[in-house]
């Protein structure tokens, strides 16, 4: 391989990585020709450096305008031949069980985003109320799936995202509630556990959730989570909660802030 041929090869190596070259000649050449090596190094450095250019987000108007446009165009179309929405979604999601988890997540996120978009459009057209109610239900089901997948991600930020998504749900199913309680008890990140307290607060009208939250108090070691749970239980105003707080006070390790909080909590409940 000569320098001219090497030059032609550089763009391929940039896009596909140094290991990608099918033949080994270029490697020999690169290592034996200081000029080409330098050129490769320089260009590769610049190519890589381009990666620091941040991906910018367009303003919210863009999405809004797009959906407005889309809705207008949809109305223009003959209203007659409308396939039920449910079938659209089904077509979109061929088979959840066999998809790779990441793909599944990506697909679900996408559908939810689209769902929101369409929900947004629906705001303007009341006549389609029934259809959109069905659509909303479908979106809610998908949101639950997305939340579940996010909650099992290794990144704490992703899990927080999963928790914040649950706050939009009207009616979480038992699997999701169980997952939320599991996060509250076992998540390695205090930030995530605290966020789980907030998420569960929204569903505290359910007896099962209140019982689980109360039971969780004794399992928490972080003073931050302890305080958040104490505050929550005070708002329940239940005898059971007062008993759990009293039990907490037996813990010798309790830091003064938490102890004080629990004491004042008990007096507020009784």
């Amino acid at each position, binding site marked *: 391989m000569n320098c001219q041929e090497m030059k032609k090869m550089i763009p391929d190596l940039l896009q596909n*990585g140094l290991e990608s070259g099918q033949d080994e000649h270029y490697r020999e050449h690169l290592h034996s020709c200081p000029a080409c090596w330098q050129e490769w190094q320089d260009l590769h450095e610049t190519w890589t450096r381009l*990666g*620091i250019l*941040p*991906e910018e*987000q367009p303003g*919210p108007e863009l999405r809004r305008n797009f959906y407005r446009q889309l809705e207008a165009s949809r109305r223009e179309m003959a209203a007659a031949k409308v396939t039920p929405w449910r079938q659209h979604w089904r077509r979109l999601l061929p088979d959840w069980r066999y998809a790779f988890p990441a793909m599944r997540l990506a697909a679900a996120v996408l559908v939810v985003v689209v769902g929101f978009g369409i929900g947004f459009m629906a705001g303007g057209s009341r006549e389609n109320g029934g259809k959109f109610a069905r659509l909303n239900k479908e979106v809610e089901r998908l949101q639950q799936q997305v939340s579940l997948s996010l909650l099992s991600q290794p*990144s*704490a*930020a*992703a899990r*927080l*995202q999963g928790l*914040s998504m649950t706050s939009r749900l009207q009616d979480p199913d038992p699997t999701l509630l169980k997952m939320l309680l599991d996060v509250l008890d076992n998540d390695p*990140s*205090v*930030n*995530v556990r*605290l*966020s789980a307290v*907030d998420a569960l607060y929204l569903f505290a009208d359910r007896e099962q959730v209140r019982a689980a939250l109360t039971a969780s108090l004794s399992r928490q070691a*972080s*003073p*931050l989570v302890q*305080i958040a749970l104490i505050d929550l239980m005070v708002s329940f105003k239940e005898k059971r909660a007062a008993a759990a707080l009293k039990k907490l006070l037996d813990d010798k390790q309790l*830091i003064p*802030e938490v102890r004080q909080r629990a004491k004042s909590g008990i007096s507020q409940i009784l």
Partner: protein
Amino acid sequence: MKPIKRIFIALLVMGMVAPALWSEDAVDRVAVPFSDPGKPGLVKAHLINGGIVVKGYDGKEVIVEAKPRGHVVGKHEDEMDDDGEDEKRDKHAGMMRLKAGGGGLSVEESKNVMEISVPSWKTDIDLTIQVPMNTSLELHAVNNGGIKVENVNGDIEVANVNGGITLSRISGSAVAQTVNGSVTATFNRLDGKKPLSLITLNGDVDITLPATAKVDFKLKIDNHGEIYSDFELKLQNKSEKTVEDKRSHGGRYRVKIDKTVFGSINGGGQEITLKTFNGDILLRKAK
């Protein structure tokens, strides 16, 4: 699959040589590359006693320095002492003393995840880590030191117990929590996607954002805390408690309430949760 790279640096091999190695400028330093330097890596570091400083730099390797803090006390024979006596002597001398024979900075790398650990239960060790800027971080510390992160674009997870957290010039997601100490974060920009969460029990939460940042805040203060903001915070009163707004001196917008506040700036967008039980929340506009 590549075999696990394991680099184990025995800082202290034998008691006999320990004092020399642990002299004040005895910094142990090791540089480890990620197995796939083309992709962002993850660095995890755990420390019981001491501080962690992580800096992003324009390079490909992770450079770790472990530096024991303070002076070495005791003479040759002290190294043979057992733990109990060490502790007594520590109190007596008022200085940290190093336990010989147990130390070692360990760096393990596998599939672009690097785990750094120092058995720092007997002495304070400060870790300084330089990472490629796109690296993600998971840092844990407990006593006697803060955690500082500077110039890193990856996702950052930090937990401390007795010490503050300072994140500066970052732009990825940040999830940080401590019990005793303030949390300070300065963002170059927000990625607009992942939620951020900064929480402490005793201390301020102080965040600096670009003037144009689009954020939905969830703020919680307690006791005598206050919220100060350079930004025009648009409050949504989601909580049922009453919200009391006070415009105050100095051009800053002050809000004092006793429950969670939901507020947005620049029309809202990324979710940021800030909480402190004993302290203030400060929202600053980058200059």
